[in-house]
C-alpha cells in the first residue's frame, strides 16, 4: 500500500506491506534507527515517536495508519547543532546509561513538556510511566526533565553536572 508520511519535516512516499509496523517503517524503510524496539507489546516505550503532536508507541501502529501524518523522531528534535533542551537535560543530568530507552524517553518528555511546561516531579513520573528504563532507576531522568523544563522556560536549571549530584 502507498503511504505518504512526513518525518522530521521531510516528505516520504512509500509502498509498504499493510502489516508493516510504523517502527519498522521508520527503522528499515527510512533508516531512522534511533527509534528502538524493546518489547513488541506497546509497554516499554523505547519506540515512542510524536505523531501529529501526540506521543505514540510506534510498535503499536501500522505504517499505513500514519499515512498523512507528520512524525517527529529523536533524529529530528535538535536544531542543527543545537541540542533540544530535553537532550541537553539528559546529558547534563546523567539521565541515560545504556541509552536504549533514551530516544523514546526523550520523545515522551518532549510531549510532556509541550503540554505542561512546569511539571512537578510527580507529574514527570506520571508523564513517563509508559517508558521503561532498566538502568537509571528514573532518579536522574526526573532531574533531566526538570532541567529541560527550566531551559524551555528560559530559566537557569538548578540541577545538572555543575550541581551536587548526590542528594
Amino acid at each position: 500500500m502507498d503511504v505518504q508520511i512526513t518525518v522530521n519535516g521531510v516528505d516520504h512516499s512509500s509502498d509498504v506491506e499493510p502489516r508493516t509496523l510504523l517502527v519498522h517503517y521508520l527503522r528499515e524503510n527510512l533508516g531512522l534507527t534511533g527509534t528502538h524496539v524493546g518489547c513488541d507489546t506497546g509497554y516499554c516505550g523505547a519506540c515512542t515517536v510524536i505523531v501529529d503532536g501526540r506521543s505514540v508507541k510506534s510498535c503499536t501502529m501500522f505504517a499505513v495508519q500514519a499515512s498523512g501524518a507528520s512524525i517527529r523522531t529523536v533524529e529530528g528534535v535538535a536544531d542543527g547543532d543545537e541540542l533540544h533542551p530535553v537532550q541537553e537535560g539528559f546529558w547534563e543530568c546523567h539521565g541515560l546509561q545504556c541509552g536504549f530507552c533514551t530516544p523514546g524517553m526523550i520523545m515522551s518528555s518532549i510531549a510532556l513538556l509541550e503540554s505542561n511546561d512546569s511539571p512537578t516531579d510527580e507529574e514527570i513520573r506520571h508523564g513517563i510511566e509508559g517508558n521503561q528504563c532498566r538502568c537509571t532507576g528514573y532518579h536522574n531522568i526526573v532531574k533531566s526533565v526538570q532541567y529541560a523544563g527550566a531551559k524551555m522556560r528560559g530559566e537557569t536549571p538548578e540541577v545538572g553536572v555543575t550541581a551536587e549530584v548526590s542528594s
Partner: protein
Amino acid sequence: MSTTSVMGGIVRRKEDPALIQGKGVYVDDKKFHGELSVAFVRSPFAAATIESIDTSAAEALDGVWAVYTSADVSHLGPNPAQVPVGALRPLLAEGVVKHVGEAVAMVVASDRYIAEDAAELVFVDYDPGEAVVDLKEAFTDAVKVHADASNTLLTWNGNAWWAGVIELPDPQPAIQESKLRDDAIVVSLEMTNQRLIPTAIEPRAVIAEWNDGYGSVELWTSSQIPHAVAGAIGITFGIASNKVRVVAPEVGGGFGVKLNVYPDEILVCFASKQLGRPVRWTETRREAAFSSIQGRGWLGTATITGTSEGKILGYELEVMCDMGAYTHNFTVAIPLLGLFVASGQYDIPTSYKLHCVTTNTMTTDAYRGAGRPEAAYYLERIIDVFSRRIGMDPADVRKANFWPPEAFPVQVPIGLTMDSGNYAENLDSLLDRVGYDDLKAKRDAARSEGRLLGIGLSSYVEVCGFGPSVLVGTAFSWASYGLPSAFNGSGVVRVQPDGTCTVTIGTGPSGQGHETTWAQIVSDGLGIPMDNIEVHHGDSLDSPMGVGTFGSRSIAVDGSATFEATGRVREKAAVIAGHLLEAAADDMVFEDGGAHVAGSPDRAVTWAEIALSAYQPHTLPEGVEGGLESSVVFSPPNATWPFGSHMALVEVDPETGDVDLLNYWATDDCGNVINPMIVDGQVHGGIAQGVAQALFEEAIYDSDGNLLTTSMIDYALPSAENLPMFSLDRTVTPTDSNPLGVKGIGEAGTIGSAQTIVNAVVDAVAHLGVEHIEMPLRPKRVWQAIQDARG
C-alpha cells in the same frame, strides 16, 4: 599519582551525544548487504520427546531460504561455552526438550516477517513427559530432568568448597554446641528468593557474516563478553580465534543476561556459512523471557543462634538453588559467589550448604549481583528476625557482630581474605544522616495513629573485581572450553601522531560509562584533554584480550590496566619531552595538553610535538624506540570487597496491602571514586532492581513448566511512578588490590536493597504478628499476611 580535577570529578559522559540523538549503533541498527532473518521454533512443553519434525510446509513458503533442525547442526556439538557440570545445552533440541522455549528449529528467510510466518508452518510432533518445576520436588529426584542423573548437580559446602584447596574445620559441631547454651536463642526461617528475568531493554540481537574467501566470520552481538563469544565460535567451527571477529557495539543494558554465549550466536554463523549471506536474529521480548538466562531462584532456610545481648554464635544457611534445565557459562558458580559473602560484614561462625538443583525451566545464570543479593537477603533478613526476637535494635545487633576495622585484612569463614572495611563507621554515617532516632519516633507516632510505617535496614558486603589469576584459574576457569582463562584486565594507551589519544580496552560498557571513566584515568595521567581521548572497546580482534563486563569488575581490573599503561606512556613521553626541552625526564610535568619543566611553565612542549618526535625515531634520544603506546595486562592479587548500609522507610496501606516506598537512603563504600556522577547512577539503577525484586518482579512458572510472565505486561518492571528519589552518600575505604584503590559499584545497589525493603515492610506490620512475607511484596500478599496475623 598526580591528581587533577578530572580524577574524582563529575564529568559529562562522552557516550551521550550520540545516544541522545539516536545515532548510537546497536546490533539491530547495523545493516549488512543482502542479510537474511531468522525465527526460531520453540518448544511449548517443559519436558517432551520429539517424535518428528516436518519442515516441508515452511520450506515451501516464498522467501524461505532454509529450515534447520538438530539433524543439520548436531555435528557441531553443544554450545561449548558452558560450565561442564550437568547437561550441556545443544544448539537445537536433539530428540528431547527440557524447558518451554527451548529452540527446536531455525527458519531463515528473506525478512523477519516471512521467517515468523514460516516458523508457524513447522510441524513438531511432541510426546509430552513429566516436568519437574518445584525445587523441593526436584531435590527428591522423584522426577528427573535428565534421565540417569540426579537433579542435584553439586552442593557447595562453606568449609570445603574448593576440593583439595579449601578444607577448613567444619563449623557445625561448635554451632550445634552453642545451641545447647542456656542463653541460646535460635531463630530459623524458610525463605524464597524468587526467580527474576533480567530484562535489559534492548533484546539480544545477532548478525553474522561468514566469508569463505577470507576463511573468517564476523559476528555482531549484543554481548557483555565478545572475546568469549569469539572463543566459542572458533572452537565450534574448528577455526582459529584470529579468524573470528566478534563486535559488541552499543549494548542496551546487560545485567548478566548478555554474559552468556548463546546457541543463536553460533547458529547464525552456521547459517551464514551455509547460505553465503549475512544472517540476523533479533530476540522478541517474549523470547527474552525464556530463551535468555534468568536469575535468582533460591529456596532455603537461614538459622541464627545467638544470645539475648545480640551476639551471634552461629549462622547456618541451607538452600536449594534453581539451575534450570541446562548449565551455561557460570550457572553452578552463581551460588558459589553467594557463598563468598554469605557471612556478610560479620565475624560469625558459619555453615553453608548450597545445593545446585536442576528443573525443567530456563537456565539461571548471573543476574545483577549474581548470588550475592541472594546471600545478603537470607543473612540480613534473618538478622532482622533475630533482632526482633531478642527485642534489640537491628542496627545495634549488626554493630555487635561487625568485623572491626583493625581486623583487616580478614579471612572470612570460607577461607578468602577481605581487603578492607570499616563497617561501623559506614553504618553510623548512614544512621546519622538519616536521623535514625527521629525516624523511629516518626514511625512510632504514625503507628499510634493507625498508620503502618516501617523502617528497614541492611548491611552488605560484595565481592567483585574478578579476579585473581590463581583463584580464577582453578575455580572459575573458562580455559577448558577455549575462552579467556584468567580474568585479567587489559588496556592499550596510544598517543596518536597528532597528540590525541586512543585507548583500547578489553571490556566494554552496557551503560556503565567506560568511555568517560577511562578517559578520565588517561586524562589525569597525561594531561591530555578529555575531548582528545577516544576509548574503543567491544571488538574481539582489535581490543586487547579481555574477559568482559560483569561482576563489577571492569574498573578494578581493566581500569587498573589502563592506569598502568598510562603511566608507562607518561614515562616514555617524559624522556622525549626532556630531550626536546633539554631537561631531565624527571623534571617533566604533564598538564594542560603537554609537558613543561617543573617550575618553568614556559619551557613547554605540546603532546603533538612529543608525538611528532615519537613517530620520527631519528629525532629520539639514543636507545628510545619509536612510537608512543603501551599495552598492559593486569592481574589483581585479590578480589575487592565493597560494602555499605541501606535504609528504607515504607508505608503499608492496611486496607489494601499496598506498599509505598517513601524514602531510600544508601551509604555505599566502593573505595576511591573516579566519577561520582556515574557511581551514583550505578547505585540508583542497582537499588531500583533490588526494590523491584522486593516489590514487583517474579518469573512465574506453573506446575507444568509454562512460564506465565513472558511480556512486560505480566512481568512487572517498576515504572517511574513506583520509585522515589534515592538519597545517596559514600564512605571511602580504598582497596590495596589495585593501584586505583577502586572496588566496583555496578551491583552494590542491588545487593543491598531487596532485604532492606522487606525488612521495612515487615517492620511496618510486625506488631500485628507478621514475621515474614515472601517477595515480591505485592499488595495481595501483604494484605493476606496482615489478615492471617490478625486471625
